[in-house]
């Protein structure tokens, strides 16, 4: 080989290596925060303070870390003990101490879905407690042959499969092992959901392999059949009696270490006290919401908008009737024979009339205990000065076993002529508040529940254009779930023909109901006209354009479900929707144009930046400075354009800003536990707790707060001051794939649960970007899907949990969603961010988008910044885009928006553990991390070698040509 060719080859190798390393360097810098976390380089070099597990002044220690880990892992078990829901029990549970030879049936017993796989911690493999270990540790003898066969079956649950093995799997070699483990057949069925894709429609039914398995178990003559339900999604359960199932326990996603809690319930070591967070419908496809859930594409004249992000829609035609609000309201109307509720419309296929007991297997709020409780609603008082209701409840334990009782306070508002005329809907029963009390054996306990009356007001988007409170009879009731509560209310009304969810005749209990009538004679439109969080701000319609009827031509306008006429308005599928000119125009994003009168950035008009103050103000000097203090302007003015663009770009964290001595900080995932590693002790991954539906199903403010507290404690020991969690979208249907990251089908349960979690996190200095705000109730087409809903549903259902997180929970972080609110992408929705969040709710924190790279069709950087987005999730490249945009267009308006974003980000971070950990002598430098310097060094070396090799090749070739000539 000629030497020149050799050098050409070498130069190609060097060039390739240079390109490779350069890409790796860019990648590494994009994920600098994550790499720092892996390498144990904590938040800006800080060791965070403020832990209850720290020493006397809150400083973290290895000993404290070990105590925290012990508490976290114990809490994982407690979560299941108090969150798992005993749906059915004919006395089979708890298992007697003699019943310890059991067979774990169901392929998913060996393939438990610990969590959804979405944002959250990785497992510490050696510590994960699987089903076999959980049972064996509790003293059970399990059929290991079958368990091992399942473990190696190669079949697992998915979005379109229950993951059950066929009947042929059970060979005689396996069935011959059954007789030794016949005390109980414990069958695990699972349903799976995760990010990006929803489960296939119909997968919530019992599939053929599951039926065959149940038949096999029936044929084998097991003494007891116990079904365990794994995953947050509610399966159709109408088959429990058919297959002689004695007991059924829903345990959601237990996290990596929570299964002992499930076994403790089976063995009787723990007394179950969880209650459902969703309705278990007999037909998972039958609810009004399910009629419009999934993939819908506009029809266009031609193709005028981007195909990827602008062509999909979904319509929430059910209005406020989500989950139990549909089933229980229709039930009342059916009992009272009003609103054509007995029509067959919406009933099971083949039915001639709608019947509650045919539609619902287990109601919302339902749950059994090994104790027997009876409740009495002793009184409900209204405090006009505080504008609150307070309910007094007595719980009596009729059994010999102490237990925890869930006390659930529901209310019914009058459904009036005014409502019918103005399209205001009222659920027959709605959750108002709850508590959990310890009740000794044969003893009693008292519960006091205080709730804001505001939460009972209805939103009238047509006449009053605000919240209203109407005259009439209000009923307050307690009960084991929403259905028992409505039966109690109906008993008070003197109704007959009541049934429980199994179809048994019941009478309801008047002792569990109180009637209250406000001393008003006309509809009150004034009391809640202004925001309860900022009386200066009027509350009025903000989402008229989220209603499809705002955009649609007359022939495409829709009718929302109303209890005034169930038959005529039960939702039909909006299968086709033509994008008229208005819609096409509305779908176009990338609308930001520099205004003609926008100040000049270069001339420093309108705002000042890069100012050298006589007495520089450091980041930490702004701690405890109120948000509206003018000192903020002075502080921000010190930063150059380059400084200002640093903090808006998230690379799993935000770099430091040396000009103001602001250290870098990590931003971690996620709703199912922290995606981070500890920087102390054995440096294991953060704890994978049981997920939020289980936390919420405890119906216990203390458990929900404890989850937030331990989560935030772990964040301190991981060096994390900000997290993208928790999630609180509504679980609108049984096919809501991200249910594992959310809390409930009910807005109020979610409102309390998320605010409990978030408030506890804030106490330990963790800023939580509560997600995904809002109308992100399906994964199908989530990026860019036009989501239509009416303002009453938005206010009372879909925004309510976020309202709780930001007001009751005092969150200083929130994440917008991928979808469009109506036609407007959430992260460019100025009305949402500025009028509602920062206006009505007086929110002072920062807003982060859900991770997307710049796209002119959908998530345009200037549109987002201008509308109020402050941090660009997982897209540090936006920083450079903003910088270049402002300089190239000389846009002083965007500069002001950028300064506002920095103020909000810094304000939030100063209220985090980071703000509590910085000392005044901290100096932040722009020096690179050691690994960054190393990478750059290698890049330069390889670049030089490549150039050198090319040069040698050129010289050799030149000489050879010269010689040849």
């Amino acid at each position: 080989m000629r030497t020149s060719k050799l050098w050409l080859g070498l130069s190609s190798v060097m060039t390739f290596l240079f390109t490779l390393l350069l890409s790796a360097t860019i990648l590494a810098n994009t994920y600098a925060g994550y790499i720092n976390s892996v390498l144990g380089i904590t938040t800006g070099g800080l060791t965070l303070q403020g832990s209850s597990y720290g020493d006397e002044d809150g400083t973290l220690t290895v000993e404290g870390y070990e105590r925290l880990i012990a508490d976290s892992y114990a809490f994982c078990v407690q979560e299941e003990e108090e969150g798992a829901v005993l749906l059915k029990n004919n006395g089979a549970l708890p298992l007697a101490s003699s019943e310890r030879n059991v067979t774990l049936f169901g392929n998913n017993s060996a393939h438990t879905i610990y969590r959804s796989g979405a944002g959250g911690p990785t497992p510490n493999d050696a510590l994960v407690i699987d089903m076999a270990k959980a049972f064996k540790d509790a003293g059970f003898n399990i059929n290991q042959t079958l368990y091992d066969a399942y473990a190696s079956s190669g079949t697992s649950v998915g979005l379109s499969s229950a993951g059950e093995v066929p009947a042929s799997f059970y060979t005689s070699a396996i069935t011959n092992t059954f007789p030794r483990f016949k005390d109980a057949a414990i069958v695990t069925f699972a349903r799976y959901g995760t990010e990006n894709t929803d489960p296939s429609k119909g997968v919530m039914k019992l599939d053929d392999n599951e039926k065959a398995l149940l038949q096999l178990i029936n044929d084998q003559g097991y003494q007891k059949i116990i079904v365990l339900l794994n995953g947050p999604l509610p399966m159709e359960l109408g088959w429990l009696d058919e297959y002689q199932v004695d007991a059924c326990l829903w345990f959601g996603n237990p996290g990596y270490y929570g299964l002992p809690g499930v076994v403790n319930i089976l063995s009787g070591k723990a007394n179950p006290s969880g209650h459902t967070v969703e309705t278990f419908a007999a037909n998972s496809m039958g609810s009004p919401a399910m009629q419009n859930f999934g993939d819908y594409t506009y029809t266009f004249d031609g193709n005028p908008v981007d195909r990827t992000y602008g062509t999909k829609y979904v319509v929430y035609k059910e209005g406020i009737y989500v989950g139990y609000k549909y089933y229980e309201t229709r039930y009342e109307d059916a009992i009272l024979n009003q609103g054509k509720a007995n029509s067959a419309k919406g009933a099971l296929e083949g039915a001639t009339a709608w019947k509650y007991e045919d539609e619902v297997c287990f109601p919302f709020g339902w749950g059994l205990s090994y104790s027997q409780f009876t409740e009495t609603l002793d009184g409900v008082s209204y405090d006009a000065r505080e504008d609150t209701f307070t309910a007094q409840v007595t719980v009596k334990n009729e059994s010999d076993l102490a237990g925890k009782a869930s006390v659930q306070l529901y209310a019914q508002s009058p459904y009036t002529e005014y409502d019918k005329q103005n399209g205001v809907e009222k659920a027959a029963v709605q959750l108002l508040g709850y508590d959990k009390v310890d009740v000794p054996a044969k003893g009693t306990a008292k519960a006091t529940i205080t709730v804001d009356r505001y939460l009972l007001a209805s939103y009238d988007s047509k006449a009053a254009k605000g919240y209203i409170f109407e005259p009439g009879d209000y009923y307050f009731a307690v009960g084991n779930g929403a259905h028992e509560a409505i039966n109690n209310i109906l008993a008070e009304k003197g109704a007959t023909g009541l049934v429980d969810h199994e179809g048994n005749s019941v009478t309801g209990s008047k002792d569990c109901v109180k009637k209250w009538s406000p001393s008003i004679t006309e509809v009150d439109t004034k009391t809640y006209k202004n925001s309860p969080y900022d009386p200066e701000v009027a509350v009025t319609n903000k989402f008229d354009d989220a209603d499809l009827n705002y955009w649609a031509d007359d022939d495409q306008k829709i009718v929302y479900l109303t209890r005034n006429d169930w038959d005529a308005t039960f939702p039909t599928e909006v299968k086709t929707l033509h994008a008229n000119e208005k819609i096409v125009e509305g779908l176009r994003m990338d609308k930001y144009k520099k205004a003609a009168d926008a100040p000049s950035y270069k001339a420093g008009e309108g705002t000042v930046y890069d100012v050298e103050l006589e007495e520089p103000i450091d980041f930490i000097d702004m701690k405890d400075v109120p948000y509206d203090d003018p000192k903020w302007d002075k502080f921000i003015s010190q930063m150059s354009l380059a400084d200002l663009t640093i903090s808006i770009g998230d690379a799993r964290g935000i770099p430091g800003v040396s000009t103001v001595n602001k250290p870098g900080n990590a931003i971690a995932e996620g709703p199912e536990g922290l995606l981070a590693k500890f920087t102390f002790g054995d440096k294991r991954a953060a704890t994978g707790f049981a997920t939020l539906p289980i936390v919420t199903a405890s119906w216990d403010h203390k458990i929900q707060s404890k989850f937030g507290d331990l989560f935030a404690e772990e964040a301190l020991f991981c060096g994390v001051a900000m997290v993208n969690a928790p999630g609180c979208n509504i679980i609108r249907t049984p096919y809501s794939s991200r249910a594992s990251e959310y809390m409930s089908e009910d807005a109020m349960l979610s409102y309390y649960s998320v605010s409990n979690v978030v408030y506890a996190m804030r106490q330990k200095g963790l800023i939580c970007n509560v997600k995904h705000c809002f109308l992100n109730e399906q994964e199908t087409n989530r990026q860019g899907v036009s989501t239509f809903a009416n303002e009453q549903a938005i206010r009372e259902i879909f925004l309510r949990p976020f309202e709780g997180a930001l007001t009751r929970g005092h969150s200083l972080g929130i994440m917008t969603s991928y979808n469009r609110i109506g036609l407007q992408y959430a992260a460019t929705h100025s009305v949402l961010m500025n009028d509602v969040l920062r206006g009505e709710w007086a929110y002072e924190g920062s807003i982060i988008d859900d991770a997307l790279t710049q796209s002119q069709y959908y998530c345009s950087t200037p549109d987002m910044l201008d509308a109020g987005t402050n941090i660009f999730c997982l897209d540090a490249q936006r920083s450079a885009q903003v910088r270049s945009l402002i300089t190239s267009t000389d846009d002083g308006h965007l500069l002001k928006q950028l300064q506002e974003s920095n103020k909000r980000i810094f304000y939030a971070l100063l209220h985090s553990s980071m703000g509590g950990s910085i000392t005044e002598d901290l100096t932040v430098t722009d020096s690179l991390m050691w690994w960054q310097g190393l990478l750059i060094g290698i890049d330069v070396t390889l670049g030089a070698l490549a150039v050198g090799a090319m040069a040698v090749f050129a010289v050799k070739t030149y000489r050879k040509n010269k010689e040849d000539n």
Partner: protein
Amino acid sequence: MDMKEIMKGKGLGYWICTGAAVVSLILAIVVFATWDNALPNRVTDGYLIGIVLLIPIVLQAVFTFFPVRFAGVLSVIVYGAAFGTILLRIADTVADFFNKVAFQGGNFGTCIFYAVMSLILAFACIAACFFDQNKEEKYLI
């Protein structure tokens, strides 16, 4: 211009690069067809990978008529850039796979396919650099 004569005069290095360009074209088509589901959720510009992969086809067409000695190196640079473009976009899905989570979406197998194919193309053109582009020493530069 006699195409037959031009082609007759091409060396092994040229043919390797041409083969790589053809594969690159196929890969580009695959990328255009699949990137939306294959790449992580946050990526909205996956088509850029396909565009970069089209560049070697243009280059190879140019080099056919205007041969240069270092044609292979230029192709290596482009495939290296293609690999970099891929790497920056698939990282979330790859990280999810190893973290045993699935929160960024995408299809791990397809992502790895993109990356491995672009690497193979780069390696092929590196190999091509050790061979002649033309059988005779007739180069533009």
